[in-house]
């Protein structure tokens, strides 16, 4: 018994590792990202400490004296700097000339100090000029410190002896990287736009699911069930076309149908209607086509599942019911539907999750327009975290949005299992180990 268990574990190990790597890890990482303010500006791999004008502004309220003192750049040609320059072992004339000609000079900007350095007779290269001017930098403004220690050390050298709390405040105000925060969830909770996108998503999923992925699929399965076998297969094949056509081409065909110079406009032009973009003209039209585009793809899967489930019903039941004088409707109501509960649960559950997560058809057709009318949650998360015109990719907020989707998916699945009474659908296995 024990060996068979170990063997089982070994057998399942590759799959378990795959699940861990490709299913659980992304969710865990999403959760981690969602608790940060990670964005293009903060970077992903960490930050540095930089006293920028913005950082000085942040410090002004709590530590006005310090903020005022570090607000200006200051370059001083002093003995300490010249000594450091000598230690660099560049051309000896550089240090000598600075000491002889410029000792004690103060400059208000790096550029002015560098002009003096560049004019030295030994003419250092541009990169050397930078190294030299750094030695005379007597301020911290705009210098990028890789560690907090380096920043505090520089401040200490400049005569700012900060207490632990002040150090904390300075580090916090000057840090350029991401920090842990729950603000993303607050933003999601408070933003009226997020509420609108949430409603959009609920509408889109509910309508597509009800009318197409389950409703229309069921209708197709039932009608083809009562057709002659050959006709039925032709119908089913036709309804599989949206699924097997590459999505880019499939959506392009819808665009040809609906755009200003597309088929619909041409057709309506015959009756004197001016051409218009039926896909993007208004929110209702956009929703109509977005749901059709997705529904026609989604219907095929339900159709296949339901058809095969109906095929699995013993034919004798239909014969018997016909002997009893049952109508088609009664057959559907009392024979087919009760035996389709399990496939309907499966299709509902599966399609809910895939509709919640899918956005490629919407991205390709309306891009969430017109005016974000068809922006659904997953598309908004994608736009927020990975693709928008301003290039401001907010990884943290996007991850938080994705996480909300995961949670909603799990909750809905649990509700479905309860509603369809999953426990009564599975029978206890007859063989126990």
């Amino acid at each position, binding site marked *: 018994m024990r060996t068979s268990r170990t063997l089982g574990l070994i057998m399942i190990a590759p799959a378990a590792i795959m699940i861990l790597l490709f299913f659980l890890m992304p969710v865990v990482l999403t959760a981690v990202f969602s608790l940060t303010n990670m*964005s*293009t*500006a*903060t*970077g*992903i791999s960490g*930050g*540095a400490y*930089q006293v*920028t*004008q*913005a950082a000085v*502004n*942040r410090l002004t309220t709590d530590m006005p004296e310090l903020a005022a003192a570090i607000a200006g*750049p200051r370059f001083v040609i002093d003995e300490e700097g010249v000594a450091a320059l000598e230690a660099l072992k560049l051309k000896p004339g550089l240090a000598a000339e600075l000491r002889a000609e410029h000792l004690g000079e103060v400059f208000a*900007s*790096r*550029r002015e100090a560098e*002009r003096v350095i*560049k004019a030295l007779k030994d003419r250092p290269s*541009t*990169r050397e*000029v*930078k190294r030299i001017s750094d030695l005379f930098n007597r301020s911290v*403004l*705009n210098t*990028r410190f890789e560690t907090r220690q380096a920043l505090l050390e520089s401040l200490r050298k400049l005569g700012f002896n900060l207490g632990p709390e002040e150090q904390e405040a300075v580090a916090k105000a000057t840090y*350029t990287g991401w920090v842990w925060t729950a603000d993303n969830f*607050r*933003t999601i909770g*408070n*933003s*009226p*736009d997020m509420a609108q996108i949430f409603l959009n998503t609920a509408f889109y999923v509910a309508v597509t699911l009800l009318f197409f992925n389950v409703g229309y699929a069921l209708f197709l399965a039932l009608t083809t069930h009562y057709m002659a076998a050959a006709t039925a297969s032709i119908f089913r094949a036709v309804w599989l076309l949206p699924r097997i056509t590459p999505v880019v081409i499939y959506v392009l065909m819808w665009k040809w149908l609906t*755009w*200003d*110079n597309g088929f619909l406009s041409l057709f309506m032009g015959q009756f004197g209607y*001016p051409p*218009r*973009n039926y896909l*993007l*003209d*208004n*929110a209702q039209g956009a929703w109509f086509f977005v749901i059709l585009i997705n529904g026609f793809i989604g219907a095929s899967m339900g159709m296949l599942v339901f058809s095969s489930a109906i095929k699995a019903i013993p034919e004798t039941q239909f014969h018997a019911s016909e002997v009893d004088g049952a109508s088609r409707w009664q057959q559907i109501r009392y024979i087919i539907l009760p035996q389709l509960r399990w496939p309907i649960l499966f299709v509902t559950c599966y399609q809910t999750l895939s509709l919640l997560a899918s956005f490629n058809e919407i991205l390709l057709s*309306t*891009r969430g*327009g*017109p*005016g*974000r*009318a068809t922006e659904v949650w997953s598309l908004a998360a994608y736009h927020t975290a*990975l*693709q*928008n*015109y*301003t*290039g*401001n*990719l*907010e990884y943290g907020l996007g991850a938080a949005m994705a996480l909300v989707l995961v949670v909603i998916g799990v909750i809905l699945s649990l509700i479905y299992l309860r509603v369809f009474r999953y426990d009564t659908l599975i029978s206890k296995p007859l063989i126990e180990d």
Partner: protein
Amino acid sequence: MTIVSILRSATLAAALLASTAVIASAKDVTISVWSGGSGPNDNYRVDAIEIAADLLEREAAIRGEELNITVQKTPYSGWEEFKQALTLAAEAKKAPNIVATGHEDIGPWAQAGLIVPVEDYIDLDSWPINDIYPNLMEIASFNGTVYGIPQDAESRPFFFWKPHMKAIGYSDAEIDTLPAKVENGEYTLKNVLEDAKKMQDKGLVQPGYGFYPRTSNGPDYWQFYTSFGGLMEEDGKLVFDKAAMQRAYQYFADLVAAGVTKKNHIGMPGDQWWKEVATGKAGIWHGGTWHYARLVNQEGLKDFFDNVQFTLIPAGEGGKANTLTHPLTYLLMAGHDQETTQIAADLVKLASEPRINALHAIKSAHLGISETETKVDLYSADRWASEATERLLPHANAMPNNAEFGKYWTIMWKNLEASWTGAKTVEAAVNDTETELKATLGNSIVIR
């Protein structure tokens, strides 16, 4: 083995050794350059680096060094894909050496450490950098450090289809003085709406084609905020002028209500838009100086100056006429060794020389980056470049280089789009903008 043969083989060995030494001193460098928003007329954004590489190789050869530079060019036609690809490549430490992108990326990218300051590698007091317009160099700076070298300049005019203007009663002389009238505030955005309506009422253009704005998000829309008195940044802090923004939102809502602009205008296919403005299907529209190149080269509008008048963006209530310049800048990406970055910087510097930069300016109908460039024959002989430079550039604003500006922009645009399409009322849109700006930007933005 005789002495002679020993000597001979020794000489041979020495010669072989010497030849390997020559080979070892030859330096092979690969410099990759990416550019965003680069259509068929913008090839010199990346090609200029190739020309520069040729020059740099020759200079090295004269110094007795063998330098072989391979330039890998990757132009992107759009912005979304470009910024996505670049940001993620940089985070994965696979960034290109040089990138030509909008100056507004400097803020966030510098903060994230994705780019290195160009002033660490280029002497800003040396030619041709010291010749570049100071305001453009300012636009390429962040936190007092010069991060980029301006790659081009431009400005964004209003365009009027002359035949339609005449048809609603403007004389030739009046059309000629229109730019001046716009500049001193006599002709305003209100007049734009009225004239667009007249064109439609007369049946010159179809409903919704009177005023035909850009079909997607872009820096252009900040011009309207400026026209209505808005300010983007002050003393390093972003500014949200609620009343000005409300007037700008209201203007687009009014355009839609008057029927001169389509409610579903945003997101319409770009190709269709170009074809329509090039053929007089639209009455008044706005764009950038580079539209000239596309209209003339790709859309077949050969007699541009007979058909089109261009002006500043007219003033609205509370503001003045303006335009916006959105220079692209060459930036040096972090994550490469110093020597390669130095070569990349040298290439950028060479590519900024007037004659090379003029190739891009004229081919793509952008504006030059320096005074000397306007004296290059190719440039000075071009009517569009000289007229547009004179009429528009002195009034040009730029978007601020601020690490938080992208967030502001996203929120501003989202709500403009919502009030334009009627998804929100103007009041709701501007209130939502305020709420969201407060929540996301906190005290990095001044709300007035």
